[in-house]
């Protein structure tokens, strides 16, 4: 479903992403790990067509994002890091706008889509509140609602549980898990338990390169008995 081949991105003299390749099939939840500044967000921005790669390509459903960006964007739901949204709109208006741009042109279709997303992410209580007045966790949920509003075949989530309370973290994890059967999901996170809890595969990147691409069980098997964060540390040593 998502195929990434040799992506490279350089900012000035800094190689943020240095030849990353992997594929994600439907039904997989890929956990994207790496220290701060490893290049996770940059990679996601290239897959979603926000940044143009300096080299390499990203394909979604067999479509190259540089040749037909709009077709790729239609198939993707994307939650950018820190969940940007238009602050002056209410949650309902904002999701309505997203639904309209996503092609739900009749008021009824739009409403159905927004209702569904609001229910899934528990936003009923703030539906008529403007986004600038929301707490961080609610803002994050609005970003999540926006990403899954059109029930896309592929989801790219940059730190989806960032800023959520423990209950909501669990809620979002089980939501992702329940949707994943029919979708390809990439999520980045700094929470290693999250990887154990829901990911079917893990990629660890360090300084823009993939240093591990395996199942959580295989990752654990590298150092039986060790905690995941110890394994993470030894794999990303060069970043320190």
């Amino acid at each position, binding site marked *: 479903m998502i195929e990434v081949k040799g992506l490279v991105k350089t900012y000035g003299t800094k190689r943020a992403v240095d030849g990353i390749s992997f594929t994600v099939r439907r039904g997989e939840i890929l956990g994207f790990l790496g220290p701060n500044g490893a290049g996770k967000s940059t990679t996601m*921005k290239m897959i*979603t*067509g*926000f940044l143009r790669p300096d080299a390499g390509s990203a394909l979604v459903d067999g479509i190259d994002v540089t040749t037909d960006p*709009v*077709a790729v*964007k*239609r198939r*993707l739901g*994307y939650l*950018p890091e*820190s969940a*940007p*949204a*238009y*602050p*002056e*709109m209410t949650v309902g*208006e904002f999701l309505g*706008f*997203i639904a*309209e*741009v*996503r*092609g739900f042109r009749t008021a009824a279709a739009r409403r159905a889509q927004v209702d569904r997303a609001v229910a899934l992410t528990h936003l009923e209580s703030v539906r008529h509140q*403007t986004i600038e007045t929301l707490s961080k966790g609610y803002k994050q949920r609005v970003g999540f609602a*926006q990403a899954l509003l059109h029930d896309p075949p592929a989801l790219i989530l940059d730190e989806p549980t960032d800023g959520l309370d423990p209950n909501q973290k669990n809620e979002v994890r089980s939501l992702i898990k329940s949707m994943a059967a029919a979708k390809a999901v990439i999520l980045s996170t700094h929470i290693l338990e999250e990887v154990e809890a829901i990911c079917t595969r893990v990629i660890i990147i360090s300084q823009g390169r993939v240093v591990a691409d395996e199942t959580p069980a295989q990752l654990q098997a590298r150092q039986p008995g060790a905690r995941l964060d110890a394994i993470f540390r030894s794999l990303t040593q060069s970043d320190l």
Partner: protein
Amino acid sequence: MSQIPPLFKRELLGYFRSPVAYVFLVVFLLASVGLAFFLSGFFKSNVASMESFFFWHPWLFLFLVPAAGMRLWSEEKRSGTVELLFTLPVTTLEAVLGKFLAAWAFLALAILLSFPMVLTLAYLGDPDWGVVANSYLGSILMAGAYLGVCVFISALTKNQVISFVLSVMVCFVLALLGYSVFTEFLSGFLPVPLVDVISNFGFTTHFDGFTKGIIDPKDVMFFLSLIGFTLFLNVVALER
């Protein structure tokens, strides 16, 4: 192009949700009407004409259009919503047009809110309605051309202050090029044909005809092609 209406609606809603829009409308009205009354003697002239009102528009727009246009892309870049917008299934051209048309509609509203002045004229005297209509048309076209410049410049920076200052400078040059005092000064040391070419790029050169009731297709084309050109630059700047 079917994506333009939702983008247009969202942008326009954004204007009216912030106090900036109302402050802008009031300042615009006070300034445009004030200049006509106090500097040009709207009533003292004893002719039922709006000329003294429209006379100031090229100079007024110099500050007010950059004030309305500075936030357009700068704000999206600063708040990160640009990442949301460009990972939705819209092309850069659609995004640029939606934004530009909304801002232009807002400026047109600001200009048309001066209509009570025309009604006053009609009550006191017998204005030439053709001239009035042409003046409004010219003013709105000219506002569009100024706006094109400002929207383009706002795509270059995430800093609204830089965006404003640069826009005022560029608009000032464009207004000055056609200003009679400036062209007379130029013809003191430049050959007349060259001065003509230079003044041909000036906004006042092309605006004056409208306020005298003449619609010259060349003037209309000048403003429209300037709008087209700046929108093209805008798309290039965003896709960079």
